[in-house]
């Protein structure tokens, strides 16, 4: 009986320490912000300035690519024989705006893949600069967030520069040119944001991207062709 009491007493002490520790941890976490003097190797200037390229404008032909998916497979736009076009989204694991958009990107893929416009996500960040954007962590992200689309790694950091993606998330809506003799050409139809409220999906008033895809599907001219949104600059 006595040993029992001692044991339960001990158990309580251990439990108490754990509670204390977890409480402490919580506080530590909140104060563990990025220190200003921390040696951040990120030297993120905008690609456009460095390469002199301005990226795509509406009506330009978008280049195809061959990039490694989180599944290990290499993916190109030309693999999608039946697609009418593509929703190409430059995004990443870490940017709070990208994270806030994850569910919406999955929903867009579910809605528009059956209609011929699949989502192709590309991570343009250099993991040597932004270590949380490594290929392995992309695999974990795709699993955890239930990505239903390819999540490609822009290993050489060249594709985003050609497109002119300055930040994540950054959307390029492409349409296959169906006219004779131009098979396989993908034309840029919309550039910009998913919608008008990246922080809060339930407060969205204008679904810029979905509206644009629907207008393409109806054979109409896209009414809003370019939009702007705040995003994390691409980490080269």
């Amino acid at each position, binding site marked *: 009986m006595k040993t029992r*009491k001692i044991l*339960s*007493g001990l158990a*309580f002490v251990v*439990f*108490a320490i754990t*509670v*204390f520790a977890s*409480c402490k941890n*919580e*506080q530590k976490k*909140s*104060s563990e*912000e*990025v*220190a*200003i*003097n*921390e040696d*951040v190797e*990120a*030297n*993120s*200037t*905008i690609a456009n*300035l460095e390469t002199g390229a301005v990226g795509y404008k509406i009506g330009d032909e978008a280049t195809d690519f061959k990039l490694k998916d989180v599944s290990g497979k290499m993916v190109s736009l030309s693999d999608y024989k039946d697609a009418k076009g593509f929703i190409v989204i430059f995004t990443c694991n870490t*940017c*709070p705006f990208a994270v806030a958009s994850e569910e919406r990107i999955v929903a867009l893929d579910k809605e528009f893949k059956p209609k011929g416009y699949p989502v192709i996500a590309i991570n343009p960040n250099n993991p040597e*600069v*932004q270590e949380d954007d490594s290929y392995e962590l992309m695999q974990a992200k795709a699993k955890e967030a239930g990505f239903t689309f390819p999540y490609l790694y822009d290993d050489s950091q060249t594709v985003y520069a050609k497109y002119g993606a*300055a*930040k994540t998330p*950054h959307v390029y809506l492409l349409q296959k040119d169906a006219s004779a003799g131009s098979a396989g050409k993908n034309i840029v139809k919309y550039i*910009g*944001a998913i919608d*008008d*409220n*990246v*922080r*809060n999906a339930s*407060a969205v*008033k*204008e679904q*810029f991207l979905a509206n644009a895809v629907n207008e393409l599907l109806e054979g109409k001219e896209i009414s809003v062709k370019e*939009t*702007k*949104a*705040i*995003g*994390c*600059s*691409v*980490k080269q």
Partner: protein
Amino acid sequence: MKLLSVFLFFIMLQSCSDKKSETKASGITSEVAMKENLQIEKENFDTKRVVSLNFEELEKNYFQKKNDSIYIINFWATWCKPCVKELPAFEKLTLNFSDKKVKVLLVSLDFPDKIDSQVIPFIKKNKINSEVVLLDDPDANSWIPKVSEEWSGAIPATVIYKNDNRKFYEQSFTFEELETELKKFL
């Protein structure tokens, strides 16, 4: 014995949750304080507050100053590595040009619910002297072009202006680069 331990346990839990509610409460008073006094100048770091503004308020209060000061407005966020990296350059600028009329404003694009948990602790920890406000305006598509037609929306981004002379920079700055740009306005 059993009762005592249960009692002790509750006290501990209580003390833990108390701390959290304390920070919450101070957050609320901070907002009230802000609305009454938009421009809180040099302050004790312990009472540092961050004002939340929508773009219209930001533009009215900070983008249209007509006097002989040079205004440097930097868009940043606590989670943005290149932004955090360049902040010391802006801080140093305020110090080095204290005899000139140079005013730095740091516009945080952190999510509004992170003011108390991230923005204020960050300012305190890094002893940020420049004025910090938080831009709480979700429809970025409407206000990004008002800052500059050239802006893609990526941060960091900076505006330098004096009266009607205004320049926009979508880039990271070193202190030297920033100083060079500033001198063009002197």
